[in-house]
């Protein structure tokens, strides 16, 4: 016992103080940058949301007026509704196909890496390219979609998809889902590779068909990953700006107006910076609330 090496209390204290100093020193550069250019702007945005400001003149304190206005603003609700529809669309046309493709690819498939690479590729493109390409596909004159419709004898359905209030949002969703399903597929495929293969054999011996196996054997094993991806999709779909702005700028009318494009429009196009900030704060609160949910699933799913 006596032989056991023991640091004197002084030595230990010195060591932990040195460790503490270095701990802070290593954090300092990151904290400074993060504090000035992320935390300060967040706080300042919250403050700004209680003021009326055109970006140049003095800030005028208006208390809760911006928030009251936001709740009465028809377009805020339209934007929120469109975000919800967009999210549902991306889940239906992005997450769900991603899950199906992952299930198919998890079997013995020749050329799996090639398929994987192809499905994933759109995710690498800047949204500017995605917008250009899909605006061509939806183009009323030479667009592929109209051409296909005419070829199969449904020419009467042909239209300028992005210009029609009823079809603009679904068209945007199709373009958004195109960049998203391959990304979901990769995540699901990784999750499926961790599942228990003997369960599938057992189910097959019991005479289950492919759909039954998928619902009763596959899904329960990856349900946390599925939940995680869905919550992630909700967050991602409420943050979306680039694609919608580039395809339609929120139009026609407000048919594709979403929270992010409306915030941009109110602040940087119409100079109601205080009002824009208040909608941004509402959006941020909503996203933070869902993010907490996301972290819960992430803990269990990964």
């Amino acid at each position, binding site marked *: 016992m006596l032989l056991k090496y023991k640091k004197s209390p002084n030595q230990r204290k010195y060591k932990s103080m040195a460790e503490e100093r270095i701990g802070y020193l290593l954090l300092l550069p990151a904290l400074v940058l993060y504090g000035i*250019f992320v935390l300060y702007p967040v706080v300042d945005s919250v403050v700004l949301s209680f003021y009326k400001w055109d970006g140049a003149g003095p800030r005028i304190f208006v208390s809760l007026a911006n928030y009251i206005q936001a709740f009465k603003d028809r377009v805020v609700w339209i934007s929120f509704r469109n975000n919800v529809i967009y999210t549902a669309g991306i889940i239906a046309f992005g997450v769900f196909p991603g899950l199906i493709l992952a299930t198919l690819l998890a079997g013995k498939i020749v050329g799996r*890496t090639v398929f994987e690479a192809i499905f994933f590729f759109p*995710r690498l493109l800047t949204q500017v390219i995605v917008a250009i390409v899909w605006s061509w596909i939806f183009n009323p004159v030479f667009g592929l979609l109209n051409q296909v419709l005419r070829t199969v004898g449904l020419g009467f359905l042909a239209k300028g998809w992005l210009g029609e209030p009823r079809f603009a949002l679904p068209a945007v969703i199709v373009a958004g889902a195109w960049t998203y399903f391959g990304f979901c597929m990769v995540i699901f495929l990784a999750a499926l590779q961790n599942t228990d293969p003997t369960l599938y054999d057992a189910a097959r011996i019991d005479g289950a068909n*492919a759909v039954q196996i998928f619902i009763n054997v596959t899904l329960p094993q990856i349900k946390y990953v599925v939940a995680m991806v869905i919550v992630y999709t909700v967050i991602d779909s409420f*943050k979306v700006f680039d694609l919608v702005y580039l395809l339609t700028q929120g139009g026609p009318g407000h048919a594709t107006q979403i*929270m992010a494009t409306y915030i941009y429009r109110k602040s940087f196009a119409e100079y109601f910076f205080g009002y824009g900030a208040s909608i941004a704060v509402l959006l941020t609160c909503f996203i933070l609330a869902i993010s907490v949910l996301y972290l819960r699933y992430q803990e269990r799913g990964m």
Partner: protein
Amino acid sequence: MPVKGRRKRVFSVGQVIVYLFLIGAAMYTLIPLIIVGLTASKSNPEVLKGPLTLPSEFILFRNLKEAWTIGHFGMYIKNSIIITVPTVLIVMFLATFAGYSFAKLRFKTKDFLFYLILTGLMLPFQAVMISLYFLLNRFHLINTHWSVIIAIASGGLPFGIFMMRSFFMSLPTELIEAARIDGCSEIQALWYVMLPLAFPAWVSLIIFQSMWTWNNFIVPFLFIHDNSLRPVPLGLMFYQSEYYTNYSLIAAGVLISILPLVILFVILQRRFIEGITMGALKG
């Protein structure tokens, strides 16, 4: 040795359906890109005949050359590099230091500071956008590359820190203990023992942060006004609106901006997919 040729596998009906489905999905993914390729290969009047008709005269290289000259793509690519390289370096180094500190060192306010940074993972850009614009304006940084570098780098820090922290936590602390016993200071232990091991984590971080920076649209869209400073996505957007009806030249421009990416992706496919899915999910 596996027994060969015992059972000749004929594709079952189920498998045929699976392959048809996969090939169909691959076609759906590729058709928009095929349209770009075809459009860039024909003359503009031909574009209006239909997106999937083959060009009567293959003029891809003429279009590429013309797009390159009138579209200033050399300049945009240069700007993108000027923005991306410092951004990635800043995130990489600061995130490595901070991640190491969070993972391996003990100090009082660690948990609080970590949660503070974790919050940044969830913030949408809209939460900072307006105030950040006026803050950078006060520093006279608006309409400079630095505005974009600072905005994207500080926004990317939370994810970078989170990732490097997880990585360092997966390394055994005994390595540091051993280095300390050998007489290394904390900094030396980090520099000589931990950093060389951090290479695989860096590759993922570099890929994720480069893609994120290179493709970012909204930050340069808000902060840069001069054409001569625009990075590729922004340049492409203005190029597109300028030559709105010259589809073959726009397609050629799109091809120019995709090409470097395709080459990198083919070489580093696995790393790309890992880096980006991991990055997005944690971020």
